[in-house]
């Protein structure tokens, strides 16, 4: 540590003390330290100077209100105390009567509601919970770039509170809201009931009832929550450690935060987890010696403001390196690399994240270095499972997504297509296309709660930002500006001059700024009576087959079907089926966005209306579409037909379809396996690799069943009869016997 650092440390810890001699000596030669000391002395002197005699007093009306409030409060407290005393006195006088009532009280204790649906037992328990929730918790830290501490809760709160009143309650009572919100989140994560319901109980201090509603075991939940709070709370006297570190990744599902300082992750509670962003440097305070995990109890601005860089190593030397796109040489000490030389620890083309500082000689010195997986551009579609302040999690995908501005607009169950950079353990979202139109109310809260800097419009860029030379993370490019209301939708159908949208809207072609196709996902801005398309794209179409149930009809006539297998929805424009059966089969070409399928071409049928026949292909009339069958019919295969196997002349096919005059339109065509009977003497066989070599030179692959049945009997010299079919050029045995007539079904099987 150089002398300036020592001085800084001393000044930091002794803000108002006299300067020791060694500092005074240093000040004679160091102007920067001198400036700090000088300004401190000025402040000190300024504070001791006589103050302006400005008198601040309340207006008489307000003064009266405060005094009135004092007297009312005093009366309330006194009355409550008197009531308690009287009750005690009565109890003493009526000791015998009270004794006889003990049994009754015990029963009432657990069963009879005394107030607000509370039994005495639950009242006591709620009181205990309240004490725990109101316990002066370890400080929670506002994120450094928010404007007001109370706004920290805003993004967190809005996911749990439906009504304005609830939100306002939390804004004005943020004294104890951290623990209360942790309770809401803790119970919500363990049960299926919505956060807002738990919140409503917690708001009334009905914690016992909230746990009951969530159908969770009382004492276990109590203990677990107390232990959870304890993990992330720093009580007076408990040891802690503070350090600056840059976040390398955040795992929302476990709360694990990987930093460039510790090899092991740090763990955060639900509130701190909301605040951290990858590639941003913070001052972390963790509890030490009290837990096996490094639990974060505080988050703050970093003391040091190093620059951060990320990129590929283009050349590497003994103790220095060059990064792709950064022309300065970066010096790295062995201390940073755990005692190793840069050239032995790192390789050319490694993708690294570094923090570096510039020395007075203008040299760049690396203070921390981490090797990352090189990010690659990727596009993912999925359903939003959980939304956090700076990111979100998708359903069935163990990855955390970071979108520092756009995620604010998302809600659970929204279906989104994401574009961005995949870092392996997490995903930096550059663009979000939501397939559910945003709600206006969300926009309003987004604006109300966010730092204005974040709200500045940014232009859409397709080049992924790879390097930054500041401690702030690369900003997410986006093409939505909060002050311009935009909406997302999908084109489901086009008829005459009108477009039919997924949202149920019908829009005239004249109103749109450009032509669209069915299946296109769009983002548009509505201005008066016209729609300006800001962005449109379409995923690749695919042929699918689902069992579906009819769900409902949108106001614009689009039919919605539901797939019970995976819960997805199929949107069909005018399916023109008058009687919709409960369960049908959907076969069609669709464009999919997560669990939403937009039908481009389709047929919906039930198996009861199909004919099933078995026939042999005798001739191919039109390449891969028309075939002559041995029963005289013609089989027609179209784009939607599900064909299982390869159709060839001579092959037997099972067809489910519908007759159209003399042509059988195949909906499902299964090509039967070609079965051969092979005979021979076993020359060699391998149980592990599951094959049999016959004296005819044929190798037959066995499956688990045939191997099992042949155990101990397969041996060289035995004559066997094998029922086989051909798959990928190999003979696969479906049955093996030592007598020809025992296949299939009769005779002794091996």
């Amino acid at each position, binding site marked *: 540590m150089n002398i300036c650092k020592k001085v*800084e440390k001393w*000044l*930091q*810890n002794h*803000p108002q003390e006299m300067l020791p001699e060694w500092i005074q000596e240093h000040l004679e030669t160091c102007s920067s330290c001198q*400036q700090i000391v*000088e*300004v*401190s*002395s*000025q*402040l000190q*002197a*300024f*504070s*001791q*100077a*006589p*103050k*302006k*005699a*400005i008198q*601040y*007093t*309340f*207006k008489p009306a*307000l003064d009266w*209100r*405060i*005094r009135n*409030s*004092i007297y009312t*409060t*005093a*009366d*309330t*407290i*006194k009355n409550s*105390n008197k009531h308690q005393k009287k009750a005690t006195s009565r109890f003493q006088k009526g000791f015998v009567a009270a004794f006889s009532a003990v049994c009754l009280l015990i029963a009432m204790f657990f069963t009879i509601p005394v107030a607000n649906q509370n039994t005495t037992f639950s009242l006591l328990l709620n009181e205990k919970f309240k004490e725990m929730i*109101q316990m*002066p918790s370890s*400080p*929670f*830290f506002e994120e450094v770039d928010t404007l*007001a*501490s*109370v*706004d920290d809760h805003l993004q967190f709160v809005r996911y749990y509170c439906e009504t304005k009143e609830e939100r*306002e309650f939390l*804004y*004005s009572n943020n*004294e104890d809201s951290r623990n209360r919100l942790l309770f809401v989140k803790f119970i919500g994560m363990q049960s299926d009931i919505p956060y807002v319901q738990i919140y409503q109980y917690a708001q009334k201090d009905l914690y016992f009832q909230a746990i009951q509603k969530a159908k969770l075991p009382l004492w276990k939940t109590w203990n677990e929550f107390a232990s959870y709070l304890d993990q992330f709370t*720093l009580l007076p006297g408990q040891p*802690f450690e*503070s350090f600056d570190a840059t976040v390398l990744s955040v795992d929302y599902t476990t709360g694990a935060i990987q930093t460039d300082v510790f090899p092991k992750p740090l763990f955060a509670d639900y509130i701190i987890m909301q605040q951290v962003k990858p590639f941003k440097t913070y001052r972390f*305070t963790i509890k030490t010696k009290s837990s096996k995990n490094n639990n974060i109890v*505080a988050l*703050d*601005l970093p*003391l040091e403001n190093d620059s951060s860089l990320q990129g590929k190593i283009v050349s590497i030397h003994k103790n220095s390196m060059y990064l792709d796109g950064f022309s300065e040489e970066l010096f790295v000490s062995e201390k940073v690399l755990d005692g190793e030389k840069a050239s032995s620890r790192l390789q050319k083309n490694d993708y690294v994240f570094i923090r570096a500082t510039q020395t007075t000689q203008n040299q760049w010195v690396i203070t921390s270095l981490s090797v990352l997986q090189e990010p690659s551009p990727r596009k993912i579609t999925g359903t939003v499972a959980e939304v956090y302040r700076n990111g979100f999690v998708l359903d069935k995908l163990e990855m955390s997504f970071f979108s520092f501005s756009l995620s604010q607009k998302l809600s659970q169950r929204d279906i989104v297509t994401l574009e961005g950079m995949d870092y392996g353990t997490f995903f930096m979202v550059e663009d979000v296309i939501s397939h559910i139109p945003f709600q206006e109310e969300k926009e309003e809260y987004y604006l109300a709660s966010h730092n204005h800097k974040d709200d500045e419009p940014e232009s859409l860029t397709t080049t992924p930002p790879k390097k930054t030379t500041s401690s702030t993370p690369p900003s997410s490019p986006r093409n939505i500006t909060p002050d311009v209301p935009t909406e997302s939708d999908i084109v489901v159908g086009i008829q005459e001059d009108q477009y039919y949208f997924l949202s149920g809207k019908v829009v005239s072609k004249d109103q749109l700024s450009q032509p669209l196709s069915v299946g296109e996902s769009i983002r548009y801005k509505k201005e008066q009576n016209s729609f300006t398309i800001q962005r449109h794209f379409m995923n690749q179409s695919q042929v699918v087959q689902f069992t579906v149930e009819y769900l409902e009809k949108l106001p614009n006539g689009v039919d919605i079907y539901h797939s019970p297998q995976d819960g997805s929805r199929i949107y069909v424009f005018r399916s023109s089926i008058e009687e919709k059966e409960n369960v049908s089969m959907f076969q069609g070409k669709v464009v999919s966005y997560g669990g939403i399928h937009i039908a481009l071409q389709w047929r919906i049928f039930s198996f009861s209306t199909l004919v099933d026949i078995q026939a042999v292909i005798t001739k191919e009339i039109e390449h891969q579409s028309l075939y002559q069958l041995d029963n005289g019919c013609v089989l027609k295969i179209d784009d939607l037909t599900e064909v299982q196997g390869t159709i060839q002349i001579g092959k037997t096919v099972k067809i489910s379809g519908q007759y159209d005059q003399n042509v059988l339109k195949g909906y499902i065509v299964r090509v039967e396996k070609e079965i051969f009977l092979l005979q021979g003497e076993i020359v060699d066989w391998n149980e592990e690799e599951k094959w049999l070599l016959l004296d005819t030179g044929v190798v037959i692959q066995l499956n688990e069943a045939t191997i099992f049945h042949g155990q101990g009997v397969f041996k060289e010299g035995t004559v066997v009869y094998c029922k086989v079919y051909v798959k990928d050029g190999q003979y696969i045995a479906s049955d093996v016997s030592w007598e020809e007539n025992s296949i299939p079904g009769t005779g002794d099987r091996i």
Partner: protein
Amino acid sequence: MRLTRKEEKELVLRAKQGDSEAMTVIYKEFEQEILRAAFGITKNPDDAQDIAAEAFMTFFQTIDRFNTDYPIRPWLHRIMHNQANSMFRKKNRMITGGDYFDNYASENSSQTDENLFDEEEISLLKKAMNMLSEDEKKMLSLFYMEDFTIADLAITFCIPEGTVKSRLFNSRKKLAKKVQSCKKGGHVA
């Protein structure tokens, strides 16, 4: 003379028992200070009166739950600040430009004992102060002008004492840079 910690604790204990006289003493003790701080935030005497009054009423209405181990001042400041936030939200604006040091300006700076200041230095310091962030300004003014201790600031800002120290130091460091910049007539972003 300010109340000692012991006197303050006794007053709170009495107030918790419903002693209106004790509550009134507390009210009068902190009336000026809270009003001054409220004015520093709002720059509007009417708003300052409203939020300070709300802060006092909230404090007394919940006095029975107040933990006597804690000092009153930082809590009152926190409640007042929350009231200010709440009011600004309703008015759809944010706390900006609090000119705290104006409230504490010297009566006649050239007559200070050590003659450390002249008018120019004061105006330089004020100018530099106004270039700091809202929290930095607030922290410095409470520490130097209202004699808040590190522990008081920790409660007011809801952060550990270590962080208070580091923030105070960083604010002073930043202020020193701004003062230098103002002296040169330049501007530090």
